[in-house]
């Protein structure tokens, strides 16, 4: 840009800088005066939304990384340390974990928008390809990020996904060992995943830069797919789209905030609150929701393909699945050449529109199947859906190019009528897909106590008296077998105990400390800063004392089980029933219809009057179960009240902000409409 083209700025400081480094001229050209089609609908917000989410992820991730320890011994604990002890750490972690989901929501809508309006077509092919690359990098980043908390799903997800590469003939196994840095997913794997998870977002940022640069060369597509013909068809990017994007971003953030503050674990799997155990695979492994369609495609390939008339396996079902899964994404790279219809926008292509809707439904079906166990009828449905996915791109799109007769295009953007219906359709479908979460089992569904839970709902808080009673039950009953190692005695101040009481409670337990000056370990009374003393020195001792069964740590039990506190309550009150289906109960086991497999090694833990409550509450089994379930809910998430209170403020602020932005947006746009 030569200096002569520069329009001087009124502000002397800005002008001084701009004469030497024309950043302001650049900003004005690309984001100020940049002529932009005036007919964007709200689907055009999702590029900006995705960008904001990337920013949120990088920022929260940076501060999480400062508190995270990438080692198999400490990873799980350090995440819980962030959740419990780091200032605002729970907020950062929930923002980051759910931010990944919302980043994917934004990007997927952005991609489908591009597909419907033909934004990949000449001259925007490279723009589209860069976008597909962004999605690929995102997926790799998200996958590695999910490994970092080192829960059961992290570990087994990492195992399954890295094993995909073993399908590659000849070199596969060596590649997998190279990925692992060992013979299984272990410490070296975790370390490199952390390093890469930190690096890739910046690579992503670089590619986003290219994506945006390419966009500013070709200019944006628009709902008509007709290039702007005159100044009448465009508006300057600022203020029209800055304010519209801001409004869209804020509305999106409201939904994001509702999930972060009121359902932060809704999109996650309870199993990931169980520390990674290389010896036990969870009964039902599912990837995060945003990978489900691809996971379904992976599993849809169930036969070996032989060389004709021989038994030589050309493509094993394992390799076939892997090829299909990667193919499903890589195929998008050549989409501009599969669909060569000169008409961009689906609004003017009656058949394309129909098949596009089918494709969206197909992807949702694939997502639904991905969450189901590999059983009939899901396998067959998944195979049909996977077939259709490829059929759409490889056969239907080329055929449509040839045979479809598009409706006449408007002469210019200004002449076109906007199709708002497609926005509604997409929103509706995405809403439907969000509810497709799977949970099935052979056990009795847990139920809740008659009185419900005081901590439920957007404004629910813990009942301090119940927590104290529940703690008493834990201490006098549960703690003989179950540890609560993520809690420290100091945390009991939350239950309403004062400093002296906390000290006294701590001092009742002995901890081993040392070595002292003589090099010997010694026992001393626990202090408030000590973690809860464990009933057994190690897992082996715990098993030995419990008939070979390991009593699980209870710190996260409510978050680590489907059904949460309802499950705990149901399990504790579900003893004493007799088997209804004639199940044989093994020696030393007890029947409990709420426990997976219906037999549990734990003998009925609660009796009426197992404890004597200081506040005079009658200690029935129901009462004890209800109290201890509340205590364990608190133990699993001591910051729940802070979360809901912060949430109310954040959501209120965002709603007001969105309101102001809406009015502002309207005040500008009235001039255009």
């Amino acid at each position, binding site marked *: 840009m030569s200096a002569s083209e520069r329009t001087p700025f009124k*502000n002397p400081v800005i002008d001084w800088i701009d004469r030497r480094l024309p950043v302001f001229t650049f900003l004005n050209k690309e984001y100020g005066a940049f002529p932009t089609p005036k007919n964007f609908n709200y689907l055009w917000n999702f590029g900006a939304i995705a960008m904001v989410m990337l920013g949120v992820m990088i920022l929260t991730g940076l501060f999480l990384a400062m508190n995270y320890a990438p080692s198999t011994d400490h990873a799980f604990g350090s995440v819980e340390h962030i959740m419990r*002890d780091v*200032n*605002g*750490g729970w907020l*950062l972690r929930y923002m980051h974990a759910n931010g990944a989901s919302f980043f994917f929501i934004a990007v997927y809508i952005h991609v489908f928008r591009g597909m419907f309006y033909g934004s990949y077509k000449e001259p925007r092919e490279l723009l589209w390809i860069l976008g597909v690359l962004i999605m690929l990098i995102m997926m790799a980043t998200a996958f590695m990020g999910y490994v970092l908390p080192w829960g059961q799903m992290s570990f087994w997800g990492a195992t399954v996904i890295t094993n995909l590469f073993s399908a590659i003939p000849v070199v596969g196994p060596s590649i997998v060992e190279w990925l692992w840095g060992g013979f299984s997913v272990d410490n070296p794997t975790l370390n490199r995943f952390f390093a890469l998870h930190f690096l890739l977002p910046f690579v992503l940022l670089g590619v986003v830069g290219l994506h945006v640069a390419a966009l500013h060369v070709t200019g944006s597509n628009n709902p008509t797919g007709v290039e702007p013909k005159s100044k009448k068809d465009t*508006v300057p990017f600022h203020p029209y789209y800055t304010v519209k994007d801001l409004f869209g971003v804020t509305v999106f953030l409201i939904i994001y905030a509702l999930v972060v503050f009121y359902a932060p674990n809704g999109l996650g799997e309870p199993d990931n609150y169980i520390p990674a155990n290389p010896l036990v695979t969870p009964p039902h492994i599912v990837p995060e929701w945003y990978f489900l369609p691809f996971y379904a495609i992976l599993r849809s390939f169930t036969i070996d393909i032989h060389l004709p008339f021989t038994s030589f396996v050309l493509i094993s079902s394992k390799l076939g699945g892997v090829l299909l899964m990667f193919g499903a994404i890589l195929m998008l790279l050549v989409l501009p050449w599969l669909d060569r219809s000169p008409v961009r926008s689906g609004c003017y292509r009656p058949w394309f529109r129909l098949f596009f809707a089918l494709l969206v439904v197909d992807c949702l079906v694939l997502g639904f199947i991905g969450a189901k166990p590999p059983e009939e009828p899901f396998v067959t449905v998944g195979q049909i859906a996977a077939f259709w996915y490829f059929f759409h791109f490889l056969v239907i799109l080329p055929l449509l190019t040839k045979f479809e007769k598009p409706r006449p295009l408007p002469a210019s953007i200004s002449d076109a009528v906007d199709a708002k219906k497609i926005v509604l359709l997409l929103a509706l479908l995405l809403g439907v897909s969000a509810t497709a979460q799977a949970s099935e089992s052979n056990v009795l569904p847990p139920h809740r106590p008659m009185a419900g839970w005081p901590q439920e709902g957007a404004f629910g808080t813990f009942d301090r008296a119940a927590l104290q009673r529940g703690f008493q039950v834990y201490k006098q009953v549960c703690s003989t077998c179950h540890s609560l190692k993520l809690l*420290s005695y100091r945390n009991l101040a939350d239950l309403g105990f004062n400093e002296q009481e906390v000290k006294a409670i701590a001092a009742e337990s002995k901890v081993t400390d040392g070595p*002292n000056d003589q090099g010997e370990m010694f026992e001393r009374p626990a202090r408030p800063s000590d973690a809860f003393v464990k009933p057994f020195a190690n897992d082996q001792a715990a098993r030995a004392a419990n008939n070979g069964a390991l009593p699980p740590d209870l710190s996260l039990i409510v978050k680590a089980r489907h059904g949460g506190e309802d499950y705990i309550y149901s399990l504790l009150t579900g003893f004493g029933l007799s088997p209804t289906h004639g199940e044989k109960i093994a020696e030393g086991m007890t029947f409990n219809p709420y426990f997976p497999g219906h037999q549990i090694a734990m003998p009925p833990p609660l009796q009426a009057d197992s404890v004597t409550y200081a506040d005079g509450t009658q200690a029935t089994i129901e009462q004890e179960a209800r109290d201890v379930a509340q205590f364990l809910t608190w133990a699993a998430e001591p910051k729940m009240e802070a979360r809901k209170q912060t949430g109310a403020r954040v959501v209120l602020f965002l709603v007001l902000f969105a309101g102001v932005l809406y*009015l502002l947006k309207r005040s500008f746009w009235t001039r255009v409409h």
Partner: protein
Amino acid sequence: MTSSSQEPCCGVCTCGAKTDQKGQDRREFLAYTAGAMGVAGAAATLWPMINSMNPAADTLALSTTEVDVSGVKEGEALTVMWRGKPVFIRRRTGAEVEEAQKVDLTTLRDPQSDAERVKASSFNGQERPEWLVVVGVCTHLGCVPLGQKATDPHGEFNGWFCPCHGSQYDSSARIRKGPAPRNLDVPPYVFTDATHIRIG
């Protein structure tokens, strides 16, 4: 694109804002409100991130250390960790105490009497000036001064000597010479019985 007939709607750029005065005022008001809310929202979002770098709850809870000093003989010293820093516990000889008490406070850079510095060492109402407890971190730039062992240099004032830039502390750990601005800090501590100190 930026013709002079267009009025600016913000400081940096120009855009095609052209309506009547009332609409203009209303828009300006909305724009400023939105701007202010945006700045406030961004700041409120950044705060938890910045605050996450402050000491965490478990770190704060660990801020006391209990020390058994029964093994420390007269003229000896003990170094313990408190909040990740060394704390010097010195059982001074009578001569050292006397020397520390004799110093003319007006000659000191950071005037403080020895009695003031060992006030917390008293137990059961009995003063015990032989116990000096200070944070072993030079108030200049944070090095750990030498002088805990008999074989260490003690400086010209029979106390501690900081090897980094030559600060010298006396037998009450007061700064006497060199660049450090303050005496070695006295941490909060109490004798829980005659031979146990709780620091913090």
